[in-house]
């Protein structure tokens, strides 16, 4: 078996911005002194005239983007998730969300896999913040293939959008030849009948690995990839819940306000089903390598497997 290719979705972001920028002159990219890390530096190199480094001033960057969008541009603004969704929350809410302007927020270094920088930089709350803004579309791609298509879809889509990218390289789980991306549509990656695992972002890979381990023990898990957290593909989750009767959500994000919360809301209003939320359980993170942190917070394949088993046994 050949080695699985690993690519960080922030790389996919930078690369695809360059690709889209070649044909769409309206794309303008803004960063706040993190262009090398968020990978918008690739765009800067390719199209220096359409790139603005706003310096360490995220609030201003977001509202500048609103002004650009009001004049017909398609601005992508980038920072770490902590400083995009966190620091500039109110600018996103009032300058972008309320007027419904066509601003794309490309947030990298989301979740605990920021790693060594520690809790100040590990944003596990961004999805919760963005979900609360009316009309905001939230996309959290699982791998390179999905991230590339998500960025392309963001260029075509008219309106505010939050794109969440990770720092660490993650396995490429999709085949680019047979992949289609549609905003708001989840995908069943593995069919199963005993339990539904709904995962997003890099947790899709962990969930697939967990499902393999469960299968070895005779537990047939269905694995659903939700790249669009808002608007949520409620129908897909409800249909699966009807089949399995048990739902587990997995995200590299707080269990408060993210995918788990969104799934609970959809299920409890439409088809009440027991749900267990796997994620960061209302704590701040800490310094460590991404791999070590995933183990500690039980978000690697083994950790997800153990949490699923534990819950099913209750």
């Amino acid at each position, binding site marked *: 078996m050949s080695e699985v290719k690993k690519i960080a979705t922030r790389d996919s972001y930078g690369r695809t911005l360059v690709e889209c920028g070649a044909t769409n002159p309206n794309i303008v990219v803004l960063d706040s002194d993190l262009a090398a890390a968020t990978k918008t530096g690739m765009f800067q190199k390719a199209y220096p005239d359409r790139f603005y480094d706003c*310096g360490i001033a995220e609030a201003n960057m977001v*509202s*500048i983007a609103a002004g*650009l969008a009001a004049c017909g541009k398609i601005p992508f603004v980038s920072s770490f998730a902590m400083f995009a969704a966190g620091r500039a929350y*109110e600018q996103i809410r009032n*300058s972008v969300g309320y007027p419904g302007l066509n601003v794309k927020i490309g947030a990298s270094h989301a979740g605990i896999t920021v790693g060594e920088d520690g809790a100040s930089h590990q944003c596990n709350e961004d999805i919760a913040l963005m979900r609360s803004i009316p009309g905001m579309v939230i996309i959290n791609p699982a791998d390179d293939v999905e991230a590339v298509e998500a960025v392309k879809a963001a260029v075509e889509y008219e309106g505010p959008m939050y794109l969440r990218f990770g720092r660490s390289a993650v396995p490429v789980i999709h085949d680019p030849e047979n992949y289609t991306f549609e905003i708001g549509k989840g995908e069943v990656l593995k069919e199963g009948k005993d339990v539904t695992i709904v995962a997003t972002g890099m947790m899709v890979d962990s969930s697939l690995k967990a499902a393999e381990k469960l299968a070895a023990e005779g537990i047939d898990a269905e694995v659903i990839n939700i790249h669009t957290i808002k608007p949520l593909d409620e129908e897909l989750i409800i249909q699966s819940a009807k089949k399995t009767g048990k739902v587990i959500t997995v995200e590299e994000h707080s269990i408060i306000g993210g995918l788990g919360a969104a799934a609970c809301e959809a299920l409890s209003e439409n088809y009440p089903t027991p749900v267990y939320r796997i994620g960061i359980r209302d704590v701040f993170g800490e310094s460590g390598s991404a791999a070590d942190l995933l183990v500690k917070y039980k978000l690697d394949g083994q950790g997800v497997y153990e949490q699923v088993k534990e819950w099913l046994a209750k």
Partner: protein
Amino acid sequence: MTNLELQKIANQVRTNIVKSVHAAKAGHPGGSLSAADIFTYLYFEELRVDPKNPDDPDRDRFVLSKGHTAPGLYGVLAERGFFPREDLLTLRHLGSYLQGHPNMNHIPGVDMSTGSLGQGISAAVGMALAGKLDKKDYRVYTLLGDGEIQEGQVWEAAMFAGAKNLDNLVVIVDNNNLQIDGSIEDVNSPYPIDKKFEAFNFHTICIDAHDFDAIRAALKEAKETKGIPTAIIAKSLKGKGVSFMENNAGWHGKAPNDEELAIALEDLRKEAESLCQK
């Protein structure tokens, strides 16, 4: 347009402000009145805008960064013909398009949704940037409160505009010296305002906000200033034109009752009369 003509329009704008805020039973008359002459000059002399084509991509832009003074903006937009004057009486009413703070999606002539202080100037910077990118010659104007400039984002925006040489941007500070909690010096002094903008690489001009000759000259000077943005610090009188509201922080965000409205309208009627005799 002569100064007298502008003064007559500004008097009507002020009348619109007090009537609409009274009808709304809430709103911000003080800072709307202090900026009424600036609103009037901008919309009747300076801005290349067309009420029949409010979304013209080549129009000049105006961002009311101090969005709470929407009654002033709406008051002048109505006079300029963007929407009927009688609609002003629906301000802040349920179902009205005239929201408490400017909404670009529902109000003809409003270029940016504002209200959360400090954000409008950044949006204006973005518009100026778009103009440069597209090599268009439209200009972008934004009006800030002097209390508003306590927001850190204002200085993030100023730093960027100065650094990027946005000479198509004009920042106007309505320096009426009062904010909700008192005088801006007592609360958290932003003075010296002109020196601050100068330090952020702006060309700065200090004027009397109620002198049309001074407004005219400053905006001409701004247009002629190349390579850097311009900040106009306009010393104004909060509540200007309504005797009991003048220089009174209490009228920052309060609507006049029926009796107070009558006094305000009488003040403005007298002023209109004296303008007609000139």
